[in-house]
């Protein structure tokens, strides 16, 4: 599903990714851990074409986002990016839209879902994330954990083939964290591949098929943990 080879990225003089190799199977849930500043966020952003890398190959679902340092054409990029979902460390909710509007924006505008259907599905997601009461609130009225759940809901509503989470449970209590793990697991059974950055080892072990560790821009441990399902 996802194949990364020799990925390098620098900010100015500092090389943040120093040749990352990574493979993810369809339906697999891969958790990336590692010390702060190790390059996890940068890696995820690179997969989403939010950072331009200096060298390497990124292949997603058989299409090359980047091939040996050369990026795909604009049209291809657009197609590839449609398959990927992302939950940011900083959420990036749209402040001028209510919770519901945030969630249905992409399904209705990008995938042309009928509005009523999109709302129905959004409400379902909000339901099992415990946010039903907040569907008409604006982001500034939400607590940290509520914002985070809206960000998750917004990404889930896209039904992407590859989902990337950057610390999705940092502001969530253990009960909600379990809930999120369950949702991800059930979606992966329907074929969604998932990349998760987290510091929460409990959550990691609950959700992951495999856990790898990245430090100082390089994958240092490819098999910290393996639940054995996929292998």
């Amino acid at each position, binding site marked *: 599903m996802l194949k990364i080879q020799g990925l390098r990225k620098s900010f100015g003089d500092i090389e943040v990714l120093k040749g990352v190799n990574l493979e993810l199977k369809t339906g697999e849930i891969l958790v990336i851990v590692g010390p702060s500043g190790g390059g996890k966020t940068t890696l995820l952003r690179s997969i989403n074409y939010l950072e331009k890398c200096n060298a390497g190959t990124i292949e997603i679902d058989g299409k090359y986002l980047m091939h040996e340092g050369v990026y795909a054409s604009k049209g291809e990029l657009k197609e590839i990016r449609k398959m990927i979902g992302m939950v*940011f460390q900083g959420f990036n909710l749209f*402040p001028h839209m209510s919770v519901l509007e945030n969630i249905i924006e992409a399904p209705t505008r990008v995938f042309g879902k009928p509005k009523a259907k999109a709302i129905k599905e959004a409400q379902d997601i909000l339901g099992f994330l415990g946010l039903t009461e907040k569907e008409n609130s604006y982001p500034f009225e939400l607590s940290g954990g509520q914002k985070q759940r809206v960000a998750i809901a917004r990404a889930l509503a896209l039904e992407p083939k590859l989902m990337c989470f950057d610390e999705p449970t940092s502001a969530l209590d253990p009960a909600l964290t379990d809930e999120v793990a369950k949702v991800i697991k059930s979606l992966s059974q329907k074929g969604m591949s998932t990349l998760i950055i987290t510091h929460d080892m409990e959550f990691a072990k609950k959700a992951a098929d495999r856990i790898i560790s990245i430090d100082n821009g390089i994958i240092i441990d490819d098999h910290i943990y393996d639940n054995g399902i996929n292998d």
Partner: protein
Amino acid sequence: MNGIMGFFEYFTMLMPQVLHGLVVTMQIFGFTLILSIPLGVIIALGRLSKYKVINWITGIYINIMRGTPLLLQIVFVFFGLPLIGITFGRFSAALFAFTLNYGAYFAEIFRAGIDSIDTGQYEGAEVLGLSPKDTFFRIIFPQALKRVLPPVGNEVVTLVKDTALVYILGLDELLKIGKIASNRDATLMPLVIVALVYLVLTYILSKIMTCIETKYNYYR
């Protein structure tokens, strides 16, 4: 002009002329606003375009428009263009110059507003797969709009007062009426009256702007 009584008599006498001037002022004001705001949005987009040429042309346009006095621009449109065979009517010349000029100012305001939106918002829209058009019109522009309301309000108030420049074309706007009466009667009273009219006008406009700003306060 003795005391308060004299003021009211004088005021009543002057009113019809002042109203006439007000109509001219408001016409220039209204039409300029209607035309220059959309122009400003278009130029702002050009300014933000990734095509170097468009970027460059709109940049020069803005610099010229903001770099030279509006009065001169009106003179060039009205007295200069006929020399190369383009003749505008009095009112259309004024409107044309005002629209070009204010379009440039609004463009700069919109550009700054759009620039001020956090990159996280673009990234959020991008990973959702929103098209550049949707990203702009549904995510970025609505948020930018809220931020540009105060500077747009400033510009609107300035426009009311800038309309006075059409005196150069022989149009009898508010301030000219006041100056003529002041000179004729050798008193500052007409100018006081005109100043009050401007004050009322700008007061109403800023109230309207405040209303619109309040409407946008539903989020932070």
